[in-house]
């Protein structure tokens, strides 16, 4: 198994775990983590896709860094919202899914 393939499979696995978490979790923080997992998986996959023909492609690296910055700010806002929502409603889950949280 070549390096890029390994990376690609890892990325796919991360996406899979993230999707599972997104579907199964009610707790909003868990969902935020799941989003981050999916995002990271996609970035790993993108890095692997860049290694075409053996030589490293610098472009995906730049994209991944940009993507990480975007994901970070999204996560920050999301966590802030989760905290504010939990304080206001007393629950860390959305109202319509409350019973299991």
């Amino acid at each position, binding site marked *: 198994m070549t390096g890029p393939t390994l990376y690609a499979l890892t990325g796919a696995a991360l996406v899979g775990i993230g999707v599972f978490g997104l579907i199964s979790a009610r707790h909003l923080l868990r969902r935020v983590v799941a989003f981050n997992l999916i995002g990271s998986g996609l970035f790993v996959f993108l890095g692997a896709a860049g290694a075409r023909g053996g030589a490293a492609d610098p*472009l995906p690296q730049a994209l991944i860094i940009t993507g990480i910055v975007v994901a970070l700010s999204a996560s920050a806002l999301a966590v802030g*919202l989760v905290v*504010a929502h939990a304080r206001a409603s007393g629950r860390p889950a*959305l109202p319509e899914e409350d019973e299991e949280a």
Partner: protein
Amino acid sequence: MSALVAVLVLPLAGALATVALPGRAARIAASTAIAATLAAALALAAWVAARGVPRLEIGGWAPPVGIAVEADGLAAAMIVMTATVMAAAGLSARHMLAPGAAGARAAFGFWPLMLLLWAALNAVFVSRDLFNLYVGIELLSLAAIGLVAIEGKAAALAAAMRYMIFALAGSLLYLAGVVLVYAAHGALDAGLLTDRTPARTDGLALALMTVGLMAKTALFPFHVWLPPAHGGAPAPASAMLSALVPKASFVILLRLWFDVMPDQATEGALALMAALGTAAVIWGGLAALVQERLKLIVAYSTVAQIGYLFLVFPLAGGASAEMPWAAGAWNGAVFLALSHGLAKAAMFLAVGQWMAARGGDRLEDLRGIATAMPMTAFAFALSSITLVGLPPSGGFTAKYLIMTSAFAAGQWGWALVMAGGGLLAAAYLYRPVAVIFARAEVPDSPLPSRGRQVVPLILAGAAVALGIASAAPFDLLSTGRPQAAGEGL
């Protein structure tokens, strides 16, 4: 050319300035940034109309390494519409979100978020790079979510949270598609991808991107986040969210299906998109019929109107792209997006002023408001005319073009969706119009000045004027349009 840079940089600079400067100075900075960006948007449109499509390769790097931005007619039209709505929302927000009226936090947060939203919208409209578009819509969603949550009430926070989940899921789906495209072609520039050799994964990539963008556009069945989010935000924020934000992801969809990968458009996929649009028209219309709060009626109407936009895909995409009727559908959809934006913003701003005067937006609260505030009531009525698609209005021109195109294509079912949706819109807008124009004992309450009341009327007037003086916007749209929008019937 410098106008193209200005529409991207000015709102961003304004957003930074409003964060850095203290209270009063921040509001002055915001007003300056709004006025300057509006001027830049108009200058850009004039440039495009006179000289064609300006293109900028950032930092002098050509794709695939660099990022290109281009303002074609579609982008220029959207940018002007955005600037109009933003300026109107800004004018209304000076009072509705003054520190005394909305609390210090909302008063501080509104201006940077609004300007950030604006910068993101303009970036999405002109960007030619799929990854850059991802960054743009992510920034757009984050600013929009912030605006929904700005007042910090429990219901608004829940709405923002729900919006966040849909928006992030949508972003990730879109990103997954982008990754697949890069893996297959090693390029993300729209121009380069148009001339690519199709790969096996292209269909999947397009599907992922499309579903992600549908979630962000709030197309049925991904619409559930929209009504509480748009109904719960402060009125100027609702105006921007409903009028502009869904249009950004819709424009990306147009670019993907008509510019980047027209070869991947299978008949079934195109019909499925329009079928979802049909479901949105019906569901949004029926839901709007039973709401008791006016803001929710207006928000569900957005769900329905978004549905119309997706009728363009089978009529102008795939095998239809080379047919004479494609142009009508494409232009009609863009016209609908423009006039809906203006009309919907007018509605939300009018409702916002009524809420300030009456303390609520339940239909019963608003009985007879037309007597006290005739100009805003007239604005609401004019906007309703556009949304229903009655002549003369931008909404009618769009409806006529799309329906003609549907009959010419032999796909008359979509024309009936347009026609039936118009009736449904008439039904759900009749209730609020009848209530606000009803005769009632009007309680005395302080009214906004005439200068502020006229703002929604100007927007609504612009939506109607789109239908009367549509020649100029049409010429603008024809600049740099895709093949599907070429010479038509």
